[in-house]
């Protein structure tokens, strides 16, 4: 963290940036807010980078890079893919951003951590593999790795997407034994009835708060079809189970081939719906049917849904693969 603060101050000092977007301590011991720092002093005072900085900053750069001046940003490996993808889609003006790639060894799922403690928490000390939690009725200890965000437990890469201006620390590698498709595969192996029951159970909890959509870097539409009465499918609430399905299918489809699997949707869902399993299904299908593709990885590569080959499989492939009957 000290290195990051040093870098931030340097960027302010040499005039590379006139502001930096980063994390800062929030109201609760495990809260990290996002703030735009406008001076080196406030940056030094309030900037934080620790186990609770799970939030992806990339989406804010759509708005911020449209403003005058240049903004600095620190990007974890998974955030950097969102960033690169948004540049590719012309949503972020790269020339107005100075991006610093930073290391990440997994972030804490603060909600799960807080839920695991019965008493009110007033302080958390991060001791690396252990988190010491002080509560009103004494201290408890939690193993950091047991409370990682899903996206971190199933981390796909510690390597940044191209497009960052510099890197602090060593550039990581892709995670070879990444487990992110395990649950998708498990679901695929179920019968349609089991799958249907599974998804009904999950999606029926949806309160249509739109947190998943609004936090999603791929859902950067100026005006979402679900908010637009002219689209014919606008919805404010899931008034029928169909609409729960419809919202999540269309949302996943709209980000298919653009989703970088940053995991923010699942992180923010107040109802604990594993939304990443929808996006990962598309990613898995794309990888299997059209070749490995990681959104944001290659600025010149066409997205799978705006591309084709003459030898593509037929849709009937769906009847043959995946799932029992």
């Amino acid at each position: 963290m000290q290195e990051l603060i040093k870098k931030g101050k340097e960027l302010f000092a040499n005039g590379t940036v006139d502001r930096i977007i980063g994390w800062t301590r929030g109201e609760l011991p495990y809260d990290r807010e996002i703030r735009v720092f406008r001076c080196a002093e406030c940056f030094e005072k309030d900037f934080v980078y620790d186990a609770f900085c799970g939030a992806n900053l990339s989406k804010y750069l759509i708005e911020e890079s449209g403003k005058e001046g240049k903004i600095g940003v620190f990007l974890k490996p998974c955030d950097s893919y969102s960033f690169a993808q948004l540049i590719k889609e012309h949503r972020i003006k790269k020339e107005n951003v100075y991006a610093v790639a930073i290391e990440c060894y997994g972030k804490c799922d603060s909600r799960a951590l807080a839920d695991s403690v019965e008493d009110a928490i007033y302080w958390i000390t991060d001791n690396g593999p252990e988190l010491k939690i002080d509560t009103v009725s004494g201290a408890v200890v939690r193993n950091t790795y047991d409370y990682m965000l899903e996206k971190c437990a199933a981390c796909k890469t510690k390597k940044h997407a191209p497009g960052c201006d510099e890197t602090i620390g060593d550039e990581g590698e892709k995670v070879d034994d990444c487990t992110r498709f395990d649950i998708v595969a498990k679901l695929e192996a179920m019968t349609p009835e089991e799958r249907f029951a599974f998804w009904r159970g999950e999606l029926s909890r949806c309160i249509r708060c739109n947190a998943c959509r609004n936090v999603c870097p791929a859902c950067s539409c100026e005006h979402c079809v679900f908010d637009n009465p002219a689209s014919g499918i606008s919805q404010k609430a899931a008034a029928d189970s169909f609409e729960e399905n419809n919202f999540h299918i269309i949302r996943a489809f709209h980000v298919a081939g653009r989703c970088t699997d940053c995991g923010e949707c699942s992180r923010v869902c107040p109802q604990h719906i594993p939304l990443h399993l929808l996006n990962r299904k598309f990613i898995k299908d794309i990888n299997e049917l059209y070749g490995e593709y990681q959104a944001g990885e290659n600025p010149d590569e066409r997205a799978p849904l705006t591309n084709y080959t003459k030898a593509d499989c037929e849709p009937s492939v769906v009847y043959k693969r995946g799932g029992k009957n």
Partner: protein
Amino acid sequence: MNRIGVFVCHCGTNIAATVDVHRVAETLGKEPSVVIAKDYQYMCSEAGQNMIKDAIREYGLTGLVVCSCSPRMHEATFRKAAASAGLNPYLVEIANIREQDSWIHKDIEEATEKAVILGRTAIAKVQLNTPLTAGESPVTKRALVIGGGIAGIQTALDIAEAGFEVDIVEKQPTIGGKMAQIDKTFPTLDCAACILTPKMVDCAQNDKITIYSYSEVAAVSGFVGNFSVKIKRKARFVDETKCTGCGLCTEKCPQKKVPNEFNLGLDNRRAIYIPFAQAVPKVATIDPDYCNMLKNGKCGVCAKVCGAQAIDYKAQDTYVEQQYGAIVVATGFNPINIDAYDEYAYSQSQNVVTSLELERLMNAAGPNGGTLLRPSDKKHPKTIVFVQCVGSRCDDSRGKGYCSKICCMYTAKHAMLIREKYPDTNVYVFYIDVRTPGKNFDEFYRRAVEQYNVHYVKGQVGKVVPKSDGNLIVYGSDLIEGKRLVIDADMVVLAAAIEPDKSARSIATMLTASMDTNDFFTEAHPKLRPVESPTAGIFLSGVCQGPKDIPETVAQATACAGKVIGLLVKDKLTCNPCVAHSDELMCNGCSSCEKVCPYGAITYEEKGFRQPDRTTKMRRVAIVNEAVCQGCGACTVACPSGAMDLKGFANKQIMAEVDAICL
């Protein structure tokens, strides 16, 4: 409130026999927005159309639904009728109750019920139809022809004939192309130069035609009627306007060892050269790869001898930017590289030649002055073996899958000419099939066999083995006799397959014109629109579209010119109004739509938008060029925000149809 009129056609008994048309009209008449519903024996008849027109006027209809035959049949008819009564033609919808109902069902109840649903679906859609007006875009009355072979020349001449300006871009120093290298033409055996060179001269003299020789297309933008093309004029180091084509420099140039590409490397030329005597434009060009002056600054002979002072060693590439209404692709072909077919010993023996090389060897302007001498020792060949289908009709891994179409005929021509001029020569032609579909073609081939006694052997040559004396042992099979021939030949002539010129691929990319797997340009429709590319405003002339001989090339060139003229005579182009439209308030500018557009109809613009807080924000938004868009709708689905929609087939309209069907 909508005021919809519904008209149900009996189509004689075609519909009425299985659909209770009265009941359909009656039921649809009860739909909320329907103000009149009628049935009639033949809606497409004059009386039927008048009924529609009267109803439009009487009820002030805002939409019209005709339940009748397929819209592919009479949609245009009813649209025209509506328009003549003052209703926008795009406020008409057809419910197909003949092909898709009465003709496929037997049960009257079922068919009637379906007809009602189809009618209701059309009513649901028509309520959301908007009046559409076909847009217009101006036409630049000038055409560009890429390629100056016989195809390009003919197209250019025909377009110029009609009074339009035409530019020819040719990458070689002269126009003329492959035909200029050919000696005689089949099946008439007239001299190629005698029929081609007057056309080349016509091009040069026609004040409507500008020839950019030694030039290439560098960039293309715009769309049908409004292309903007950047032409690269390669430095030829000779001022075209001053050079008189006297040829003195080409005699004095000390660099004599430059392979002469016009004669396919069979002899040499100088570093400053005019490709051939009848070149157009007849000006010299310095080959920078060989010129001593350009390479190391030591020489300058040509500048000294040039009376016109046309030599300019400091010349640079220049660029011309020009507007065009139409672009013709006439990039032609080349024989394939046959080095891969080592069984024919092409790279081992000078006496194995391609047919095009044979053309030069036999040509009066060729390296031997028209006497057929074999390259290795300049002896008269006594036995010549022709091998057909070298690289044509092959498996994909071995060559071209297609028939090159011209080889059978030119080989017959060669055989015949040789037998005529040198009757003591033995000529064998190994063929798989002899293909002679064409006027006077088979007669020509039969003449070679019957009159000139050319030995046609059904079979193929398996191996050619060069001997030390320059002769070649040819192993071939005679499938009809069921034996193998071993021929001691003086020369072997290979009918190499032809392929599109290598430059075609990059030109196709610039033009967003599509190509097939062999790099031939695809036509808009293989039967009905054979001289147009699917990309509007791009036309195809000659072999760039597929193998063809000279008469066919000229025919296509003229057809192509006809299409171009048809475009250029228009002052404005009317466009299909059912095109994509981007709602810029919702557009993200993410470029997804652009990537799926087969026509390059979508571009992006930074536009200022007034924000609710009264500031202006610049945003990248998609702009659809309505003149280029063909209305496929691929972009509408690629667009995640729904900003892109298709007029006439809008999201809401299709969803209304879905709703009505599922009701």
